[in-house]
């Protein structure tokens, strides 16, 4: 095991300009400028990484905890595969697959403490799972029987947000509220995490969220899964500097991690969340990863990227590297791997059953929950709608 030094810095103090990255393009698979990596694609553990600002990142997991992370990774991938199959079979209207992004989501999700609040996009099924939420929860949205419909506060997990980047402002406002409630500045304080992608970083609202969280010193972590594509558009169409370096301009630290390394994802997110809850304000984490599948089940990625690129990312797969590490370190063996596969498969079958049993909503229910205090207009339309439908009763319509 080696100690690594990453060129990636946190700011302030200012990050040195990234190197040409030549030395980083080896087995680590790092982009120019490097990233925090604690587990190489070959499954080699790096004990700790110290960034340019002097912060050292490491993890200290028991064997059980390592095995738990592996189980998470395999489970969320298996559930995702089941969802993709359900979509192909016509049981879901659409699915936004997380394939390839399991480590970024499981690592950051497990880094959250119970009291923390997460604001997802529509792809954070892995984070949802790590919050202990029944994986069925978002499927109403994808099946088309509802639009989400859960209680954000109960689950400490906001509704899936489809308009790109809007939730970063919601997360920032929520984090301002945490401060106003006096829930920061202590180790058991609360922190907030906002998920978004590389495409979202071009949105004005995301940049406003950076401004606001900076000036209000909000207890928030901006977790950007840079999966290289915004549907068809590559990263180069969104930015001309590495995304993590945007943070410098807003006055808070930015760190890039190997998004396919669950340990780096955990270590850096945990540290950033703890900084936030301790009153040290926001951090931007750029999780450098890859969307192995399509943007959604409606997308055809062969139109905009070549197979060899996808192949090169397969070699950096988050699960196979973690499995290699567990095997090499004799933390787990074939019995365990087989049992995890079996249990993930059973969960997937349970999920399938639940999806198939999801009833279509009663049409009249579409008039519900428009306003907390109701509206005479909506009430009148609902009544007319019900009357109209009743007029067909007993007929063949």
């Amino acid at each position, binding site marked *: 095991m080696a100690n690594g030094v990453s060129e990636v810095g946190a700011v302030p103090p200012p990050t040195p300009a990234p190197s040409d990255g030549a030395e980083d393009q080896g087995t680590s698979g790092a982009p120019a400028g490097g990233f925090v990596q604690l587990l190489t694609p070959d499954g080699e553990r790096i004990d700790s990484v110290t960034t340019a600002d002097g912060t050292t990142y490491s993890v200290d997991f028991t064997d059980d905890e390592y095995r738990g992370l592996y189980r998470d990774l395999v489970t969320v991938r298996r559930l995702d595969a089941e969802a993709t199959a359900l979509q192909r079979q016509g049981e879901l209207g659409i699915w936004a697959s997380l394939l390839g992004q399991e480590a970024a989501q499981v690592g950051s999700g497990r880094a959250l403490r119970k009291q923390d609040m997460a604001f997802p996009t529509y792809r954070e099924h892995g984070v949802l799972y790590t919050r202990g939420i029944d994986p069925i929860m978002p499927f109403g949205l994808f099946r088309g029987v509802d*639009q989400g419909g*859960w209680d954000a506060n109960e689950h400490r997990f906001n509704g899936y947000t489809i*308009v790109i980047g*809007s939730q970063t402002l919601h997360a920032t406002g929520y984090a301002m*509220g945490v401060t106003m*409630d006096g829930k920061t500045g202590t180790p058991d304080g609360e922190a907030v995490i906002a998920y978004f992608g590389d495409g979202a970083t071009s949105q004005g*609202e995301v940049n*406003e969220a950076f401004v*606001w969280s900076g000036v209000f010193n909000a207890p928030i972590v901006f977790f950007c899964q840079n999966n290289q594509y915004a549907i068809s558009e590559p990263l180069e169409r969104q930015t001309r500097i590495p995304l993590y370096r945007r943070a410098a301009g807003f006055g808070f630290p930015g760190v890039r991690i190997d998004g396919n390394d669950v340990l780096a994802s955990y270590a850096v997110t945990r540290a950033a969340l703890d900084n936030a809850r301790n009153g040290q304000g926001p951090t931007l984490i750029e999780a450098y990863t890859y969307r192995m599948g399509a943007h959604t089940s409606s997308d055809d990625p062969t139109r905009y990227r070549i197979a060899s690129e996808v192949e090169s990312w397969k070699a950096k797969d988050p699960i196979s590297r973690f499995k290699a590490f567990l095997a090499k370190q004799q933390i787990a063996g074939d019995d365990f791997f087989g049992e995890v596969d079996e249990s993930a498969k059973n969960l997937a079958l349970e999920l399938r059953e639940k999806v198939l049993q999801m009833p279509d909503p009663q049409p009249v229910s579409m008039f519900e929950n428009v306003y*907390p205090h109701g509206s005479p207009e909506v009430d009148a339309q609902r009544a007319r709608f019900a009357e109209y439908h009743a007029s067909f009763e007993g007929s063949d319509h």
Partner: protein
Amino acid sequence: MVETITLGKALNHGLRRSLEGNSKVVVMGEDVGKLGGVFRITDGLQKDFGEDRVIDTPLAEAGIIGTAVGLAIRGYRPVCEIQFDGFVFPAYNQIVAQVAKMFYRSKGNVRLPIVIRIPFGGGIGAVEHHSESPEAYFAHTPGLKVVTCSNPSDAYTMIQQAIASDDPIVFFEPKRRYWEKGEVELGADLSGAYPLHSARVVREGTDATVLAYGPMVRTALDAASAAAEDGRQLEVIDLRTISPVDYETIYASVRRTGRAIVVHEAPGNIGLGAELAARISEHCFYSLEAPVLRVTGYDIPYPAARVEEEYLPDLDRVLDAVDRSFGW
């Protein structure tokens, strides 16, 4: 305690009372703190309630509304100020896609008790973007409620009712009437107040119904006084609530008078007047002596200040419409 104060001061008193009454109420916007807002509606509030409750925000309207959503999820009751009507559009996405829909999307699990205050309308000699009437955009959006006040007494009561409501409410303030004075019963109990989402007959009459809201209520009342000198008794209804509209009050009046004239500053095309005309035609068809007529801004961008008086509906244009209705 009845005092004679301006509409702007009445709003200030209403905000103050809401801040006093509920520690979760926060006022936020550009320049609302130390300056007290460009129209001084929030004057003195930050001094008395602190920087955490009366928040000077960055200059970013989407940020004002977007962070208000997060604060509301956290349990706060944000009262957001958009400085001028024409500056609301950067926040339009957050208002229409998030504020309006989150309660529905969450099946009623997430309430956003947010009030969005917007000074609106023309008549103050301002440059572009400072005189617009964008209410129809919001009234067209399910999930939002839209109200506007026309006098100090209503301003004082309605702002408190809006803040107390769990519905997201866009609260339009008739900026050119900010300095008009009227009697306000400060400290009155809200529970006995006139309902927020009800229209009000502000002048009774028998010959025609004039429907107006916000800054145009004063114009309609002036027109009614002038018409009375000619022997025509106009009934004037202050809509107060634009979404939902209190149609029953309107129908009852139009069924008696047989004539309806809608007045608003916003362009006529696809405006609130069009909806009112359609509804009145459907529900009062056999009572109507003439088609519903509209007196509105023209279908042009808000013009330069030196010609705005020609753009804005005024007493003469209202009376002209009354004449046309009677001449039908």
